[in-house]
């Protein structure tokens, strides 16, 4: 059992800079919780405050119902994997893994048993007598994890543990970490700036920006139902398409187009320059209810909701010029420009579109996010 509660935690430096502002969170047992955000958003600082390496300016930290603000890191019974691994250069892999047990003065046999166990789990059996400088990046990483899990800690903290590995190894370690979490079943708090890691590993994700929590949610919800423009843009690759548009309904449209209307009464549209996209269903209801008629908004569309051919869901057409094409194997990312905006669409690999082509794209309007232009909040958030 291990539960962490963070209540209104703030970190303010002497020069007045607020690294973390009013951070409140409850972390349940066996969770794989991710702190994600751009660099400098306070995620590592928060982790270090939990570890006891950084003082908490205001707010409360509770570990298993014990007030932990003033506990030394030695007393918190957590373990941590550092970004640089922080292996002890003068010790062998064996001692590196065993260190936390050795300083607790456990029996030699007990230590040996557990080191062998962990080494087997992580595939380090043959490296136990080596020194850190003789290991590759991936092996060092494993040693750092080995040291962190041997103590069977309440909570395992990880500070960007994969960021020093190359892309292939990172993918591999990601899978192993997920497996490890399943097998050990302990609580993990994991800091990363990589949204792929966040999405694939986390059971819950905390998105942070400028020291403030933006949204806490499961990966799927975060992707489909972002709370604001920042979260929408940060999660997902390629990035969500953002289009600045104005909400107009039938009468205003007719007026501005100075002619007879060809549209039925009360139809609603997103309008940007000469393009108009009809708003229907739930989105329309919300926009009507919140009275966004005539106001500027930002529409967010995921690349997979833009298609190169009309389908049941993708009905609204826009025309753009293809400016880039990335073959990802099973699919193609087409980058196209419309007015001064650059958008991207995820289409099937059979697409023959070439750079320079002018072509039609079809939008699935059901999946739109609509953001208020000023507050940047998602009007569709529920």
């Amino acid at each position: 059992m291990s539960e962490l509660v963070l209540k209104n935690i703030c970190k303010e430096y002497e020069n007045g800079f607020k690294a973390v502002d009013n951070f409140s969170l409850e972390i349940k047992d066996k969770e794989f919780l991710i702190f994600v955000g751009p660099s400098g958003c306070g995620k590592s600082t928060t982790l270090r405050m939990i570890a006891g390496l950084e003082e908490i300016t205001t707010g409360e930290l509770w570990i298993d119902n014990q007030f932990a603000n003033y506990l030394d890191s030695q007393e918190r019974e957590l373990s941590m994997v550092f970004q640089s691994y922080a292996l002890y250069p003068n010790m062998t892999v064996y001692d590196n893994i065993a260190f936390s047990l050795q300083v607790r003065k456990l029996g030699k046999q007990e230590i040996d048993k557990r080191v062998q166990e962990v080494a087997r789990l992580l595939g380090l059996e043959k490296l136990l007598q080596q020194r850190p400088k003789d290991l590759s990046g991936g092996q060092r990483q494993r040693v750092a994890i080995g040291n962190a899990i041997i103590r069977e800690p309440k909570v395992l903290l990880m500070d960007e543990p994969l960021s020093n590995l190359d892309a292939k190894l990172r993918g591999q370690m990601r899978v192993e970490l997920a497996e490890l979490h399943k097998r050990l079943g302990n609580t993990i708090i994991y800091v990363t700036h990589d949204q792929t890691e966040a999405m694939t590993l986390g059971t819950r994700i905390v998105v942070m920006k400028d020291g403030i929590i933006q949204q806490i949610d499961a990966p799927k919800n975060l992707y489909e139902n972002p709370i604001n423009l920042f979260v929408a843009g940060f999660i997902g690759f390629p990035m969500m398409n953002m289009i600045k548009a104005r909400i107009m309904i039938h009468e205003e449209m007719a007026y501005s187009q100075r002619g007879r209307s060809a549209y039925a009464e009360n139809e609603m549209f997103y309008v940007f320059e000469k393009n108009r996209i009809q708003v229907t269903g739930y989105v329309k209801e919300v926009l009507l209810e919140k009275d966004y008629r005539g106001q500027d908004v930002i529409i967010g569309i995921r690349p997979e909701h833009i298609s190169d051919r009309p389908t049941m869901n993708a009905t609204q057409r826009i025309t753009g010029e293809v400016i880039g094409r990335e073959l990802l194997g099973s699919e193609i990312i087409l980058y196209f420009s419309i007015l001064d905006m650059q958008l991207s669409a995820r289409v099937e690999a059979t697409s023959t579109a070439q750079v320079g082509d002018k072509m039609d794209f079809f939008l699935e309007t059901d999946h739109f996010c609509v953001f208020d232009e000023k507050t940047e909040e998602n009007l569709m958030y529920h």
Partner: protein
Amino acid sequence: MKKEKSNIKKMRIEPYMFLIPSFLVFGVFLFFPFFKTIYLSLYKTNKMGQAKLFVGLDNYTTLFKSASFYNSLLVTLIFVAIVVIGSMALGLVTAMLCNKTFPGIRFFSTAFALPMAIASSSAAMIFKIMLHPSVGIINKLLGTSINWVHDPKYALVCVALLTAWLNSGINFLYFSAGLSNIDETIYERASVDGANGVQQFFRLTLPGLAPIMFYTLVVNIIQAFQSFGQVKILTEGGPGESTNLIVYSIYRDAFFNYRFGSAAAQSVILFIIIMVLTLVMFRIERKGVKY
């Protein structure tokens, strides 16, 4: 063809030409005195220090029969031990104090490194006043009336501690450099791992300093063996022969007793002791420092 050949010849001579100035300096101030010392150690000399009578190893055998020589070897050994341990401990402690930034760190690090810049004889003069039996501040503070430098019990310790302090400045510098080479995050990891300060010091700091520790040790030992100025000023080898370090004994033999041959023989022995010690330490280092 001919021209090329001369060019090659020129090329071969040129590098050595560059070496001549430094070799000249070495030759005059190092090699010549060194060989002259060995030469002198085999002779009896006149008052001017000129070799007069070849006696072979007589100077050495006389030394090895003299109790005074053994005394000065023993005194030197004790002195070196105190100085090396004292100055390295002092350097290490001060370096660790200044390893983390705090207000006023510049003042303290300057203060800790300052002994480096103080001449041994001027420091000895100051200590002489401080250690003065009736007006010295040490006796005033301790409430004692000990005649520090003229009591055989204390004289050697006083000179050794003064030397330790003098040598601690450079050690402070070495250890500061060594400490800044140790990755900060391993301490963070250690404290999360549950290691307390003492465990961190013995398992991380000391091993982390091992490479520089060895170098410092060698330099300190050599430096301690060669201490002279403070002995000359503070005790002049006395009381009795209790601070008659080997270097001071050499000085005394040569310039008071005019026994240049014996002094030269002692110099050669000192040279051999230091050389053997250094070689042994290098051998140990190759086995001991593993990363």
